């Protein structure tokens, strides 16, 4: 191999680090992403997480790691096949290959210590895998990572990730000063000795790549490194946690569940800075009940969960609808049904959010489609919850929750914070549900307001909150609660169309697929195809103007990560086909023959797959 070589200029690259879990691949990748974002590249990172904490070593199912997409432009999704992969063993690559993570020509920097393993079986596995990978077009470079790390530490398993980071830093011409700073920050709690060792490993990896690896790239910056418009880099769950703080909420009441928990981990660390409190309840039912109690007493609260937790919370959510208690419920969706795919993405909780409760339980449902929206939508959700005196479900998913991206630093404002609670006397003759006939809206007495004493109940009730024994009261209560959604609908704008407002196909999406859908649509538009897209943030009520928008396109297609029958699957007819969740709602609401395309592989949908599917449809 040659020595110093000229860096090749590229527009973007996708890098993966995969290993057994516990080898620090994610830490290395996150640090790499942060360094790159701080330098001014567009970045998206997404974790590759095995479902088990300690899966067997060297097993395809145990693949753990991270994907980083770097570019000289703003990056909105995880992209298609990777360009360079660092793998700490060969077995974990099999599961990535199975998910189409790689292509012919993908470069694999593979730990080669297995070649000298005392177990001949492992040596055989390694050799046959390498041969197979090469046969399938992967460019395998065997790298003595263990040997190199052993020069610096007797326990290379713990430090190899920094060696990997060092290699990638050279390959992608990263700013090593920033790298040193990030590594020191990462290990700040572990003491100077640990920092020093990791710095040495980082440098060793860098030097090794400089001497021995031919690949060397330069990715022009998307923005000035020290630009005046500041950015922050977070994942979606941290963004949600920051949103909770910036919205002035008093309390997060939660029960641990993947992939939502890290939002609460983050808050548990910093929430005291704004006087907030994370309550870990005994179960999800108690978690939402506690939040409802707090909110009933005037202190704004939210609960953050995922599908199975949402299922347990339904009875309380219905109470919050019935008794008009403001409440924010964050749902970081994962694969279902049941325990499903705990660490993987799905958009499968839309209908459960809308219709999960027995009886009619109208509530506001919104979905964030970027990491930045995970922040801002919490603030919006709190305001909506209070203005409309209702629970608001904010949907995100595992892809947003664990994806990391730089975005404009929010400028925290006093008006985002919840107002202090009103303790002034309540006019005695104003009922606790003083429904405005037209909007269903009313303001609520808060405990402590003299004259406002009333008994909140989940039973059908009159506007005095008295248990209703007559035939009209339940009808009226339902009317009033439903009318609030109509009132909100009246304030919403039609969705913006990405592309021309007429054409052959209109793609409709919601949630984390935004970046991938728009990337695919952009490519098709550049090639002259008449394809546009819209992306919904409000799911209940739906955004206005959909029917008019749909009327200008020959075909309407939702792309979602939840189950649908393929139209041409065995036994499937137009009479029994089960559509994706958004498609079902759109069909019901617009009476337009909306089609859908989806999968439930537990993966973010790649823009390339969307492109291929749209091309197939354009040809038909």
């Amino acid at each position, binding site marked *: 191999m040659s020595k110093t070589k000229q860096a090749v200029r590229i527009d973007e690259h996708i890098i993966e680090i995969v290993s057994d879990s516990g080898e620090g691949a994610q830490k290395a990748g996150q640090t790499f992403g942060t360094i790159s*974002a*701080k330098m001014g590249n567009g970045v998206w990172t997404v974790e590759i997480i095995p479902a088990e904490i300690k899966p067997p070593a060297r097993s395809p199912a145990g693949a753990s790691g991270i994907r980083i997409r770097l570019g000289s432009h703003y990056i909105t999704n995880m992209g298609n096949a990777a360009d360079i992969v660092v793998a700490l063993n060969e077995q974990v690559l099999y599961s990535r290959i199975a998910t189409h993570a790689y292509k012919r020509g993908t470069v694999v920097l593979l730990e080669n210590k297995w070649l000298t393993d005392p177990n001949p079986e492992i040596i055989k596995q390694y050799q046959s895998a390498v041969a197979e990978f090469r046969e399938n077009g992967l460019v395998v470079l065997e790298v003595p990572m263990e040997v190199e790390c052993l020069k610096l530490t007797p326990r290379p398993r713990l430090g190899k990730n920094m060696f990997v980071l060092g290699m990638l830093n050279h390959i992608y011409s990263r700013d090593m000063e920033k790298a040193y700073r990030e590594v020191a920050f990462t290990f700040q709690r572990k003491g100077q000795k640990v920092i020093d060792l990791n710095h040495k490993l980082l440098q060793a990896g860098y030097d090794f790549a400089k001497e021995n690896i031919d690949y060397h790239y330069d990715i022009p910056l998307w923005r000035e490194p020290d630009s005046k418009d*500041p*950015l*922050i880099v977070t994942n979606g769950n*941290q963004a949600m946690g*920051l949103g909770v*703080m*910036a919205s002035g909420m*008093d*309390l997060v*009441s939660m029960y641990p569940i993947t992939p939502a928990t890290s939002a609460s981990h983050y808050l548990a660390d*910093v929430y*005291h*800075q*704004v*006087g*907030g*409190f994370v*309550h870990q*309840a*005994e*179960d999800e*039912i*108690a*978690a939402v*009940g*506690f*939040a*409802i*109690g*707090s909110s*009933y*007493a*005037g*202190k704004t*609260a939210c609960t953050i969960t995922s599908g199975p937790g949402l299922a347990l919370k339904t*009875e*309380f959510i219905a*109470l919050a609808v019935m008794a008009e208690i403001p409440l924010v419920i964050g749902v970081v969706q994962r694969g279902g049904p049941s325990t499903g795919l705990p660490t993987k993405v799905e958009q499968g909780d839309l209908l459960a959010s809308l219709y999960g409760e027995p009886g009619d339980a109208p509530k506001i449902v919104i979905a964030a489609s970027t990491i930045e929206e995970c922040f801002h939508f919490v603030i919006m959700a709190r305001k909506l919850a209070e203005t409309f005196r209702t629970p608001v479900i904010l949907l995100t998913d595992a892809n947003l929750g664990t994806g990391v991206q*730089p975005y404009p*630093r*929010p400028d*925290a404002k*006093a008006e985002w*914070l919840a107002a202090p609670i009103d303790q002034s006397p309540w006019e005695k003759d104003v009922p606790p549900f003083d429904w405005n006939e037209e909007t269903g809206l009313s303001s609520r007495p808060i*405990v*402590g307001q*003299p*004259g*406002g*004493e*009333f*008994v*909140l*109940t*989940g*039973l059908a009730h009159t506007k005095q909150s*008295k*248990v209703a024994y007559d035939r009209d009261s339940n009808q009226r209560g339902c009317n009033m609660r439903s009318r609030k959604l109509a009132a909100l609908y009246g304030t919403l704008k039609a969705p913006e169309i990405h592309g021309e407002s007429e054409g052959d196909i209109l793609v409709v999406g919601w949630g984390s697929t935004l970046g991938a859908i728009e990337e695919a649509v952009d490519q098709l538009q550049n090639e002259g195809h008449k394809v546009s897209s819209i992306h919904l943030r409000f799911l209940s009520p739906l955004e206005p103007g959909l029917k008019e928008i749909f009327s200008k396109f020959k075909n309407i297609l939702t792309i979602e990560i939840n189950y649908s029958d393929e139209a041409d699957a065995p036994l499937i007819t137009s009479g029994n086909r089960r559509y994706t969740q958004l498609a079902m709602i759109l069909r019901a609401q617009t009476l337009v023959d909306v089609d859908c395309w989806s999968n439930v592989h537990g993966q973010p949908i790649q823009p390339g797959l969307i492109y291929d599917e749209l091309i197939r449809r354009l040809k038909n």
Partner: protein
Amino acid sequence: MFGLKADWSVDIKERYFALGDYAGGEARWCPGCGDHAVLTVVQRICRDNQLPPEMTVAVSGIGCSSRLPHYMGTYGFHGLHGRALPVACGIKSRRPELDVWVATGDGDCYSIGAGHWLHAVRYNMNMTVLVFDNNIYGLTKKQTSPTTPLGFKSNTHPQGAILAPLNPLTATLGISNVSFLAQTVDWNPAHLYATIKAAHAHKGFSLVNIIQRCPVFSEQLSKDLQDNPSKLLLLTHENGIPIEEKLLRFFPNTQEHDPSNMSEAYDIATNLSPAPIGLLYHDPEVPCYEELSSMGNNMGVEDKLAGINAALDQFAV
């Protein structure tokens, strides 16, 4: 209602609350139901302590007994079956100044809400929890409850209850942070009053198991105790529930029991008959969860904005 303050100015209490201030809708329990007696006592204690109605919240689950908030003139929260305690704890979490009462049933608390009962004892938030224990599901018409005695016939066990009953007293004593546990009967107004009053005065989670008459579905059970006071064991102690000398004659069995003595409390609680009446356990020193959960409660806008900005700084590029 006058008082002299330290600076000699006269403090006139502007508001005086009468019993009527604590009365809500007319109680719709059956005639002879023990719930009436408890409601009356709760209202009297509110009056005697002059609790401002707007600062008082009655929280309940679902069941006959859980209708109590509707009959109070305070704020109230009539929520879900089994879930009174999480709501009550949430109310208290950021508003520790509120006076929180919980009305719950033997099914509501010890069956569907059992998990919350265990954990609420651990949280030890300052509230008065009244379990209306009629040994039966009343509202849903006579199903076996966790405290239904073995062999008692109900609509779900027409041949008689097949499981030994759960003992809420020993179970509660087994939970860490337990700070106040008492038992009383609804048909002795003086003891009922004194017990609930002591529970309310305790700073922490006070659980009172009230043996309650259900004249419709489990009348024999309470009648047996009413007719045979020897089936009750009155606990006496200077730190226990104060009881007037003249009432002692109603209780042929008494035992001196120091409520700080946990192992003796446990021994007493283990015996279902005679049923102990009085204060089983009291520890005024257990910390209350709301001391943690309400921290930062009154932080000002400037400080909050500074806190948010500090958090954002951590992620700055």
